[in-house]
């Protein structure tokens, strides 16, 4: 509640200051640290530009984009049809989508768990509640405790769509307020399993994932995520109103996607865009 009030206040404050030389960025909590890093570096190089970054979630970002209270919208998922419609109504055009980084999602278990790898289907089965005991997937005889994110998270939606194939999460899945909380819970619960960005894994064990029964098990590393062999990865996006995509904002966006901007991506725990994706 406090957080959303704060965001409202911020929205009110930023709507006034959306002038040239001032760039406002709002959206995904997944991207907010990276966006702040970019803003910091860019502002130190261009002292006449002021960039204000705030989080709240991809949905908050899209809402702000529709209300034109932000210039750029960070998103950890693609824009939804309903949001696209609202944007078209608001500024008579589709927002332009830029891919800005790659993120590999890992599956965490407790370090005491003897299991090393799972197939994508098994991961889906565990998170939908079809598989309830570790011994069904070759682990110890113990019930599985499933940890998931809040459904407001872009990560949750991505996982539901691509790993669970659109099926519902088990009702008994504990929803945690953030990836760090999931890791925390998995570290305290030796029967726990969770998912989230590879960078957040800490000292929990990251499982290797097999795309099918026959394919090799791949661990999430920079190399496997960037060449696409690790099966659970996604793009991170920035959306902008095409009418605003010029001058300072366009310069900033192209800097983000240049070699110079992309070298900060790894510091935050995501992966830089492969070269062939940087211009679109």
């Amino acid at each position, binding site marked *: *509640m406090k*957080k*959303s009030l704060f*965001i409202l206040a911020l929205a009110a404050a930023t709507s006034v200051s959306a002038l040239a030389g001032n760039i406002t960025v709002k959206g995904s909590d997944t991207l907010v640290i990276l966006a702040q890093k970019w803003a910091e570096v860019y502002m130190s190089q261009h002292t006449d530009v002021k960039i204000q970054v705030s989080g*709240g*979630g*991809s*949905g*908050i970002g*899209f*809402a702000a984009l*529709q209300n034109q209270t932000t210039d750029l919208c960070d998103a950890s998922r693609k824009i*939804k*049809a*309903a*949001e*696209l*419609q*609202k944007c*078209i*109504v608001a500024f*008579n*055009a*589709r927002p332009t989508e830029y891919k800005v980084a790659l993120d590999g999602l890992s599956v965490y278990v407790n370090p005491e768990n003897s299991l090393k790898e799972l197939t994508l289907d098994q991961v889906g089965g565990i998170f939908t509640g079809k598989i309830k005991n570790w011994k069904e997937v070759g682990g110890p005889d113990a*019930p599985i*405790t499933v940890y998931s994110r*809040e*459904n*407001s*998270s872009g990560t*949750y*939606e991505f996982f*539901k*769509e691509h790993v669970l*194939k*659109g*099926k*519902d*999460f088990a*009702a*008994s*899945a*504990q*929803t*945690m*307020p953030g990836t760090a*909380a999931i890791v*925390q*819970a998995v570290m*305290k*619960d030796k029967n726990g399993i969770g998912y989230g960005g590879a960078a957040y894994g800490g000292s929990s064990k990251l499982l290797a994932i097999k795309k099918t029964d026959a394919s090799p098990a791949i661990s999430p590393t920079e190399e496997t995520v960037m060449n696409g062999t690790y099966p659970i990865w996604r793009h991170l996006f920035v959306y902008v109103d095409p009418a605003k995509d010029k001058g300072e904002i366009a310069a900033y966006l192209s800097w983000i996607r240049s070699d110079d901007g992309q070298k900060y991506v790894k510091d935050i725990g995501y992966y830089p865009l492969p070269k062939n994706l940087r211009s679109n």
Partner: protein
Amino acid sequence: MGIHRGHKARPAEWLAEKFIFLVSLSAILMVLLIFLFVAREALPVLFGETNTALVQKPIPPDEVDKHSAAELEAYLEITPDQLARMSKETLRSLMDVKVEAQNDIPEEFRNDPDARINTTEWQYLLKAHQWSGYDKPEHIWQPVGQVKKFNIIPLFVGTLKVTLIGLFFAVPLAVGAAIYVSQLARPRTREILKPVIEMLSGIPSVVVGFFALLVMATVLQSIFHYQTRLNAFVAGIALGFAVIPVIFSIAEDALTSVPRAYTQGALALGASRWQTAWQIVLPAALPGVFAAAVLGFGRAIGETMIVLMVCSASVMSWSIFDSARSITTTIAAEMAEAVSGGPHYRILFLLGALLFAATFLSNMAGDFVIHRFKQKLEGKK
């Protein structure tokens, strides 16, 4: 009206009086406005104006002229004003998006009967339904995904479960402490104990939640050996800590305001201090103690952070060692991402309105009981 009794009020006093009156009036107005705002956002759900059916028959963009303005407005979910201002190209790209959205639906959902259901109808909000992929009819809250499931019953069960556990833990402790502090403790002990217990209410609930998440959950699990580490029981106990100071300070007031003549009479007739406290003072103050519990209920049902941090799986179960998801948690966690004006957003406001009504009624009941109790003690009835 003390001001009028002596000499005539000075202008400054008069002004101050009116100002304070206005301020208090604005508080009432504020509550009313908030409720109106919440209710207004929830109205489309009540009137069945929202539609979440995934598969809808799209209107081909070329046939835009064959449809009336009203049809287009309903189809594109825009106001007449927006339609009038819209250029041909904008309208066209809006129609395209609608068609694309239909084409983006994964194959397996295309033939799913659930994808044709408007899940915001009352029967899906309240009654169990056998969704495809489930073995039996179930109450499901899964508001994000292809087929959005908005059954609010698990949230009510979760809220009640956590609140009641919290009260079962807090009421005996708080009332016991109130009896001790007001009746049995020496004045010196009382002077230390009372502020210390009331200081509990100064601990931010997010800190209590964090403590429960990291420490209490582990300790309680090692005592009771249940399977789910974070569950309604842990949340309830943590909630109890937030509620104890509320119940304690009102109950203590009620016990202290029992006329001294009652106590003195009992002691003079040879009752012990325990007998006096337990058999004379407590029964006399019972309505006040009850009101304290009711106000504690209002505080517990509205508490967000503790429950949000400790447990939030929307599982439909009355077992106290299963997880639970409260209404407040749901609103706090999901409002940020809900498409504003969409069905999910409206249902969250509906939940807010219901919660508002529940706390309002419980607070009013508490106030009413306190009032009756005061009148009774003062011998007016």
